[in-house]
């Protein structure tokens, strides 16, 4: 959809001599992630807004803790800086709408010492329009679209909400996903329901899921075709995360590549079947903390069982990855259920009030 949006931009403009001067201007003010940025000219920013049909002052949401308004114009500026083309911008804006839901706990996840990043998962027809690949190197530098969309999220956090290391961002370690953390589901090569539909978005829509999460933990099992045995490896990794990082249950993402999901799908397992299996298998007793150096906090609750998922619905199963290799990934939550994954449909307001009159 392209609309004629002619409301004037409100952001302060700066004059610089050339591209190189623009880099130094931005870096010197702490307005980057350390990498070069695309200079956000008025024309480039207006093109993003026009593509999305958003006036510059459209309020995407308000950051609930510090009451910071997030406008389409500021998101578009940061999206241009990240390298976004206009067609990428609706994904960025939708991701922010999702991040601003209370249950995402945006301030907590961006300020915590825990150091998570905002993972963005893209579903639906928009993937094909923008060239977001869900196959080779999917959790790495797989394609232009996911690279720049993920980066736009981080630059927006840095510049609009001051999420800079040592300021709002208090992460002890962080992880590489804080540069860009975005991928698409390989919907063309699976029999399963796409993630956004499974999470309640309407048929025919494109969807964006945001999840405040740690770095991917890679697993490997190329020595069985039994779905249970394959999933036991994922369960073991989830249990390891519970013991080594946080024992508390919440959302988890698992990424299942073609080589493994072919076996699981051939056995007739759905995403729901996978979630129910892992809900039962990914759980630890508090007493197991003693085996990993955390005995001092077991106290009198050694037999207490902690499931990694509070319910099977907490698991986000995503089909993605290159065609060969029995490698999968477990992507754990920042901290139990304090943050929740949020899914939103692009260009669809599922909870707007109907027009009055």
């Amino acid at each position: 959809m392209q609309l004629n949006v002619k409301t004037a931009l409100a952001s302060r403009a700066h004059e610089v001599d050339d591209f190189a001067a623009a880099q130094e201007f931005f870096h010197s003010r702490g307005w980057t992630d350390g990498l070069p940025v695309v200079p956000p000219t008025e024309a480039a920013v207006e093109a993003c807004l026009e593509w999305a049909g958003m006036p510059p002052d459209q309020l995407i949401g308000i950051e609930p803790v510090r009451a910071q308004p997030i406008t389409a114009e500021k998101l578009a500026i940061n999206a241009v800086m990240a390298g976004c083309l206009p067609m990428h911008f609706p994904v960025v804006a939708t991701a922010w709408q999702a991040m601003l839901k209370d249950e995402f706990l945006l301030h907590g996840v961006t300020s915590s010492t825990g150091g998570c990043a905002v993972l963005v998962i893209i579903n639906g027809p928009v993937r094909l329009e923008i060239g977001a690949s869900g196959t080779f190197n999917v959790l790495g530098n797989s394609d232009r679209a996911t690279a720049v969309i993920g980066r736009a999220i981080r630059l927006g956090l840095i510049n609009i909400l001051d999420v800079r290391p040592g300021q709002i961002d208090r992460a002890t370690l962080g992880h590489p996903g804080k540069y860009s953390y975005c991928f698409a589901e390989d919907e063309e090569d699976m029999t399963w329901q796409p993630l956004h539909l499974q999470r309640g978005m309407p048929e025919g829509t494109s969807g964006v899921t945001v999840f405040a999460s740690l770095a991917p933990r890679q697993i490997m099992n190329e020595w069985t075709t039994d779905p249970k045995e394959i999933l036991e490896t994922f369960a073991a990794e989830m249990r390891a995360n519970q013991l080594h990082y946080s024992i508390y249950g919440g959302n988890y993402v698992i990424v299942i590549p073609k080589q493994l999901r072919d076996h699981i799908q051939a056995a007739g397992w759905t995403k729901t079947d996978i979630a129910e299996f892992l809900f039962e298998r990914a759980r630890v007793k508090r007493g197991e903390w003693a085996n990993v150096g955390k005995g001092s906090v077991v106290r009198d609750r050694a037999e207490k069982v902690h499931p990694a998922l509070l319910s099977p619905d907490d698991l986000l199963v995503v089909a993605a990855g290159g065609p060969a290799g029995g490698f999968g990934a477990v992507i754990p939550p920042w901290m139990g259920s304090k943050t929740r994954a949020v899914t939103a449909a692009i260009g669809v307001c599922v909870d707007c009030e109907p027009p009055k009159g």
Partner: protein
Amino acid sequence: MRILDPTNEQKTAGVQLAARLPSLEGLTVGIITNAKEGTKGYFTHLERLLRQEMGVADVVWREKSNYSAPCDAHIVREITNWHAVFAGVGD
């Protein structure tokens, strides 16, 4: 080349600090903890200092229900009953 400012220029108004108390002698002080493991020892020590060295009459402890979220509204309402409050992050 004209480039646009990427920062949030619509900063919300800052807060004004309350008037400083000349002394804590005989006053009630609140402690709002985030309930993390490290807070117990830290604030217990702080309470001892407040009572023994600064003459504080009463120390009221409250725990946030979610250490990563803003303080619960019912605790915020209670603050008006205290003369001073420590709102600290312990880890």
